[in-house]
């Protein structure tokens, strides 16, 4: 037993790395397609998305960088898809420099999928959605948006005058926005900008999306009613995609949605296996610790 104890005590961390890497590779190639259950948070979010009606304008804020994309992109994908189903008008922007680029990339994929699922619908830039890019200054931008969005965002991300786009015809100030969906990779976005200023100062409903790392701190804002909805990391993002795919049929076209949950399932499977491996290592570490304690007492 002493040898086993010594082995685990001096275990090279690279062996743990190797285990995790192998688990990722094997599970990605051979997924198990474990069942994903839809949680209360995801169900609430669907209701929030369904409260947006045709021709109502919303903001989807991409406040994250590439490091947050793996968790936040599935959320953005689901939110945009559902908003297009609802025939809402979407203004995309970002308080993180990489946000608008990531938004561009995501919306292209959503539109490609959406137009396959709904061949009679064409999602047009400038009419159904627009990307107004990045602005520095955080909360000060919201203060200006409360008065005149077009004064601070004079051009879209490519530099074309924002007033030339049909989607902006009826939008002058923040109060013309039905809801803000803020996807945030840290505090700078949902917590420091949208919640205190858009929600608290100007009364615009805000629904959030955050990474798993920062998820626990956002529950209090759901409880206090400051957030209309919360997607807390990849878990609820996957559930949202599944919830959209499952029972929904477009009221007009009567067609079901068809999202790529196969990919989401694979990722959820890898999450499961890596979580298990980490837990097993923690258990081994604790057993070693307890055994060592007992062993040293005996001696």
């Amino acid at each position: 037993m002493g040898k086993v104890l010594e082995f685990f005590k001096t275990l090279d961390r690279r062996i743990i790395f190797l285990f995790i890497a192998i688990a990722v590779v094997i599970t990605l190639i051979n997924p198990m397609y474990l069942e994903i259950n839809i949680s209360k948070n995801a169900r609430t979010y669907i209701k929030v998305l369904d409260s947006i009606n045709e021709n109502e304008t919303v903001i989807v804020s991409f406040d994250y960088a590439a490091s947050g994309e793996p968790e936040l992109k599935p959320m953005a994908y689901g939110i945009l898809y559902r908003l297009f189903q609802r025939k809402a008008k979407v203004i995309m922007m970002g308080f993180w420099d990489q946000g608008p680029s990531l938004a561009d990339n995501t919306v292209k994929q959503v539109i490609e999928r959406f137009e396959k699922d709904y061949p009679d619908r064409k999602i047009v830039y400038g009419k159904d959605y627009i990307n107004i890019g990045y602005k520095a200054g955080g909360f000060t931008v919201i203060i200006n948006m409360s008065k005149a969005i077009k004064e601070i965002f004079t051009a879209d991300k490519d530099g074309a005058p924002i007033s030339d786009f049909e989607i902006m015809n009826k939008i002058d100030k923040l109060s013309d926005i039905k809801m803000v969906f803020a996807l945030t990779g840290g505090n700078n976005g949902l917590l420091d900008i949208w919640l205190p200023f858009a929600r608290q100062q100007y009364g615009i409903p805000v629904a959030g999306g955050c990474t798993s790392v920062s998820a626990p701190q956002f529950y209090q804002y759901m409880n206090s009613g400051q957030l209309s909805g919360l997607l807390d990391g990849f878990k609820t993002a996957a559930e949202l995609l599944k919830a959209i795919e499952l029972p929904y049929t477009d009221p007009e076209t009567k067609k079901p949605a068809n999202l790529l949950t196969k990919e989401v399932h694979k990722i959820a499977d890898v999450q499961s296996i890596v979580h298990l491996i980490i837990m097993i290592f923690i258990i081994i570490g604790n057993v070693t610790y307890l055994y060592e304690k007992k062993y040293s007492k005996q001696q």
Partner: protein
Amino acid sequence: MFLRKTLPLLICFFCGVFAIVGFFSAEGTAINTYYEKLAKWNSIIAAFAMLLGVGNLIRVNFIKITRNHHDKIYCAILIASLLITATFGILGGVYPTKIDPANPQLMDFFKNKCAYIFEYMMKPMQSTMFSLLAFFVASAAFRAFRAKSFEATILLVTAFIVMLGRVPIGTSIWPGFAGISEWILSTVNMAGSRAITLGAAVGATAACLKIILGLETRYLGGE
């Protein structure tokens, strides 16, 4: 002395008080108009602050090269990649654009290059850099996450339940994990987080007031 300390403190006090007053001002009033104006200027200054950050990065690395620092090759790589990206980004734009081959433009060469660097260099490097943490979290948890005391055991058990509740395999083992995990997050964790937030918020408010009143001057170099 006046330019070094008195004037900055006066400006800070004036702007801070104005931001508070403006916050409560009704729309359409003169104070509100100037409040929005100051906010707009702040947004532009913030962009220059970014230039300052980038300028400082170049300066620090340039100094290392001139002083023959052992990392000078890497510093040169950093400056070169910065300048290349910035040149393409400023002259050709950041986002992908369509180039019309029938109507060639002078700046066409610079277009889409920054977007390409972003997609195939920056994004993978950033994601990979942060994904290293997955390995280190696992290794650190193995070495340090021990049930050494009652409190540590509570922490460990909670972590296990939350981990199992958030992955499909947890609910496959026992469906109750998801419910308990959700309850922990939305009730017990929420209470703890709220206490931490309240404590931090009171501290942040006090710190802001100290800055406005000139009692905290570290932003001026602590003078």
